[in-house]
């Protein structure tokens, strides 16, 4: 979607907080949020729905809430949507009918859970790939779905395929709860194609893009 989250190439955001933003966490509640999210909490959602949920935040909130604050807001939306808690329970911060406590895990157990959670997003392709390494391609110049991984700055641009990864789950469908494969490529764009003649002639930007985002060059 053409939302506030699509930040690539936007101007006016000022300097990168190189020194003040060096630490991953500044507050204990951020650590709690990270730990909560590592447990997943909502079995029926997909990673694409979580990302799409962030994109559907009130735009001003998206820009003003910090990373982990956005996660908390989004999780509360997802709790309401999934029926894990009612809006009244969310506002109260407690559920009316508590369930038995979950079993506690040790640090060793969660470290192993990270290792075992190495997720493969590839799947057997339904159709042969339309493009090959070295091909020139053109990206679609319009958004296609509520959720897409084709950023605005790379729409309607010519690039060159530098890698083909077979079929991967298409996020556009994952955000709808559907598991559909589509060929995934790494596309290299020259900085000048994206940003004009003032860009450095040797610089490039790469993106992983699905075949359904691409057409042959005009």
């Amino acid at each position, binding site marked *: 979607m053409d939302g506030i*989250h699509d930040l*690539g*190439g936007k101007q006016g955001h000022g300097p*990168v*907080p*190189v020194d003040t*933003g*060096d*630490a*991953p*966490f*500044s*507050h204990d509640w951020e650590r*709690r949020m990270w*730990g*909560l999210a590592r*447990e997943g*909490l909502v079995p029926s959602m997909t990673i694409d729905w979580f*990302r*799409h*949920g962030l994109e*559907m935040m*009130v735009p001003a*909130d998206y820009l003003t809430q*910090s990373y*982990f*604050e956005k996660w*908390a807001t989004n*999780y*509360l*939306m*997802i709790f309401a*949507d*999934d029926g894990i*808690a009612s*809006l009244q329970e*969310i506002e109260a*911060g*407690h559920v009316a009918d*508590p*369930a038995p406590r*979950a079993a*506690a*895990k040790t640090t060793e157990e*969660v470290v192993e859970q*990270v*290792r075992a959670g*190495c*997720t*493969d997003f590839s799947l057997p392709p339904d159709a042969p790939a339309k493009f090959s390494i070295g091909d020139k391609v053109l990206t679609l110049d319009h958004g296609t779905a509520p959720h897409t*991984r084709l950023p605005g*700055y790379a729409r309607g641009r010519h690039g060159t395929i530098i890698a083909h990864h077979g079929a*991967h789950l298409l996020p556009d469908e994952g955000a709808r*709860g559907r598991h559909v494969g589509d060929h*995934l490529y790494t596309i290299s764009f020259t900085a000048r194609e*994206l940003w004009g003649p003032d860009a*450095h002639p040797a610089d*490039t930007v*790469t993106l*992983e893009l699905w075949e359904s985002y691409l057409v042959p060059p005009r």
Partner: protein
Amino acid sequence: MTNFDSDKAAELHRHLHSHLPSDPALRVKALESLAVERGLVAPETIDAWVEAYSEHIGPMRGAQVIARAWTDPDFKSRLMENATEAIKDFGFEGNATGHLHAVENTDAQHNMVVCTLCSCYPFSILGMSPAWYKSAAYRSRAVREPRAVLAEFGVRLPDDVALRVWDSTAELRYIVVPQRPEGTDGWDADRLAGIVTRNSMIGTERDLRAEG
């Protein structure tokens, strides 16, 4: 069950916008209380995750991978061929590294990683990302004016070095293999790992120093 309805999600967000406490600590407290009371997670498990990512999972993992690549040509070729498989030597595979790619800096090319659409990051080998990686400034500018961004990190990239920015918005993740600095001949992998910085594996640092 998740409804996968964009309009409903937006409506819920608008409702929460005007009904949630503005203090983020209170929002997270509410979320934790709801999750614990629903039996979805134990508070001690959250403590375990916090400890895991402060003591066990962090950029020291990536640094060990880089040091091995510098000292073991066979490992390096496996890392460049299939990083997801190579890091299994260390047991470092995991969250967000199911499709890991290593990209190598040379005298002629520098690599830098960003995620413009969210903040995708190879958590299982680099730990939690720094706040600047998730900032609107880095996400917006890394693709458009990467040399100016590098300058803010103190890196003056010479004109004759090409810069490739990897915008990692799919499920592929990247780790930059920085160049081994001069003056480290004879160092073992443990000592070398001590000079590999997190930022050098993201690509916002280029010249590592032989200190330590």
